[in-house]
């Protein structure tokens, strides 16, 4: 199925240098048509630079970018059929909402009638019709955001670029806008390339995500693939919380692999190809995959002592000291079986299923 989809944007060995500083190292990336694609990473990782190169605000040092298979790097920004939603919206302060949305269409030389129909359609789409004659500074943050969105959509770009468009909004509004953005993408069928540093935002909205760090694309995949199967430590650390344990392989067979973390701290996982005995690896174990059990249920289960606890509402986070002095983070949901918080110093048992651990060979 993936092969049959056409590719909207293709980065081919793209390198970007600012003087001596390399902002993008050899980026290769295909973004499919009609996809909600997210570039996720901490600030300064190069995600915005990638976006600005597509828009035409930065030139490419090496490599090439294709738009639906066509070369377009020679075109200036005003000749590229991609549009941008800017971080601080950049709505023209001296124009009304209507004039802002009409601007791109006017510049493309559309007829007056066509412009009017499209602008009204667009304003309807995001419920801004009553505010058409207002200036941007007379709008709330959410309204400005929606105005900036339809201003960029109105010229019917082949790809819409969104540069952290939700970062200026407060939490509630941000969550509401996520739904709206996702819906808008489906309705218009335009490819969205969305840049954010907020992992929750990325996981919630995207068809696919590229995780970036220090100018390198670390991993590309669906939300679940990235969360459950991080390719490396950087991705694992950036997305969600995780326990990272140094271990060595002590036992191998067809069904399972045994790893030793400390003297009497040995855990068992599914068999993994390509491991050899005594090999050093890193084990990733998400805190919510570990379950707290009473001590006497299984004599062979892992056991530990509660060192710290933090009550977080939906969950409680515990730091548990297990054998070998290793500290594990555990998330325990305050869910259906509501129970008292476990007091500090309590001895508890711990369990997790074999398939919830992930191995990175170091």
């Amino acid at each position, binding site marked *: 199925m993936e092969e049959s989809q056409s590719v909207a944007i293709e980065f081919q060995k793209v390198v970007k240098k600012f003087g001596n500083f390399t902002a993008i190292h050899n980026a290769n990336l295909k973004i499919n048509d009609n996809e909600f694609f997210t570039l996720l990473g901490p600030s300064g990782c190069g995600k915005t630079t990638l976006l600005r190169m597509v828009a*035409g*605000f*930065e*030139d*490419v040092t090496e490599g*090439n970018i294709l738009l639906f298979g066509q*070369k377009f*790097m*020679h*075109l*200036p920004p005003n000749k590229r059929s991609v549009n941008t939603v800017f971080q601080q919206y950049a709505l023209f302060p001296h124009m009304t909402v209507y004039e802002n949305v009409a601007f791109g269409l006017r510049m493309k030389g559309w007829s007056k009638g066509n412009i009017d129909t499209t602008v009204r359609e667009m304003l309807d789409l995001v419920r801004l019709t009553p505010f058409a004659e207002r200036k941007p500074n007379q709008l709330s943050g959410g309204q400005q955001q929606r105005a900036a969105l339809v201003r960029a959509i109105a010229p019917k770009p082949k790809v819409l670029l969104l540069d952290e468009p939700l970062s200026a909004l407060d939490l509630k509004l941000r969550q509401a806008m996520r739904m709206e953005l996702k819906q808008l993408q489906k309705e218009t069928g335009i490819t969205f390339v969305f840049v954010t540093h907020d992992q929750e935002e990325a996981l919630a909205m995207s068809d696919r995500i590229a995780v970036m760090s220090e100018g390198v694309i670390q991993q590309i995949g669906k939300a679940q693939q990235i969360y459950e199967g991080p390719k490396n430590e950087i991705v694992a650390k950036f997305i969600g919380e995780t326990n990272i344990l140094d271990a060595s392989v002590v036992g191998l067979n067809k069904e399972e692999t045994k790893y030793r973390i400390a003297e009497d701290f040995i855990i068992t996982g599914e068999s993994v190809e390509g491991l050899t005995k005594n090999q050093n690896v890193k084990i990733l174990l998400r805190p919510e995959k570990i379950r707290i059990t009473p001590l006497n249920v299984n004599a062979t289960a892992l056991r530990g002592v509660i060192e710290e606890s933090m009550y977080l509402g939906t969950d409680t986070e515990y730091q548990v000291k297990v054998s070998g002095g290793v500290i594990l983070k555990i998330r325990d949901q305050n869910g259906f079986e509501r129970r008292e918080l476990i007091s500090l110093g309590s001895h508890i048992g711990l369990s997790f299923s074999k398939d919830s651990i992930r191995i990175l060979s170091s």
Partner: protein
Amino acid sequence: MTQVYKQKRAFDSLRIWLLLPSWVTIGIFLLIPVGLMLVISFMTKEFRGGVIWELSLAAYDQFLFDRGLFGDEPPTIQWTYIVIFLRSIVQAAIATFFCLLIGFPTAFFIATRDSRNRTFWIFLVTVPYWVNLLIRTVSLKFLIRDNGPINEFMISLGLISEPLGLINTNLAVQLGLFYSYLPFMVLPIYASVERFNFTFSEAAADLYADKWSTLRRIVLPIVAPGIAAGCILVFIPSLGAFLAPDLLGGAKNFMIGSLIEEQFKGNAGNWPFGAAASMILLTMVLIALMLYTRQQAKSELT
């Protein structure tokens, strides 16, 4: 490899054409004239104004030495012009000091009002700055002269029996300079106090500082660049001022401005000498500006 669109700002390719008019205007009508003035200061004077194109150090020599009426006596130090320059510096410094004394509290007071009152106060301070300097100086002269309103009023009240005799004194010149350039002191100080983040002073108060030590140890060091800017904006024009000393000071209280002006009026003038005096004034101003920018650069680093 295919042509890549080179990222640049919309007006980059037009830059030279955009800057050219200002280069041409300022270059031809200010830089060249100042250069010419430097040349003239090394020429020989013609007796009815103008110059003879013969290289001569006479202008600078005349500034420093007295060689008698016919120029054949052994040189002695000529104090007249040196005194005029020193007087100008002292007068300008005193005016700057008093502008600071009134200007800082005023600027500080305005900057600590709420925003509506603030703009109104600043408006009130700005209006006189926009009023013709000649008219302001004439008004001041009218006010303080011997049979002017101040003296008449005080005599009628019996506070004094004789006019104060303010006019044509050094004090009157200082008053005139102070009055002319006071807004120049208030505005930059206001700008820097307005930017001052008052949580710093709250933090100081929280750490047991009373308001005087807060003002001295927290506010003053942070707004110092604004104060320096205000002082330079008052000092420089005061140094070369012409109207205040001419209208309020009379012949005894000559400053550089009047000295230079005299060299170009009518037939009694001496162009090379006037040019030389202008060059010396310009050099002093440039030194003051250099000290100022160096100081500003230093305070930006810390």
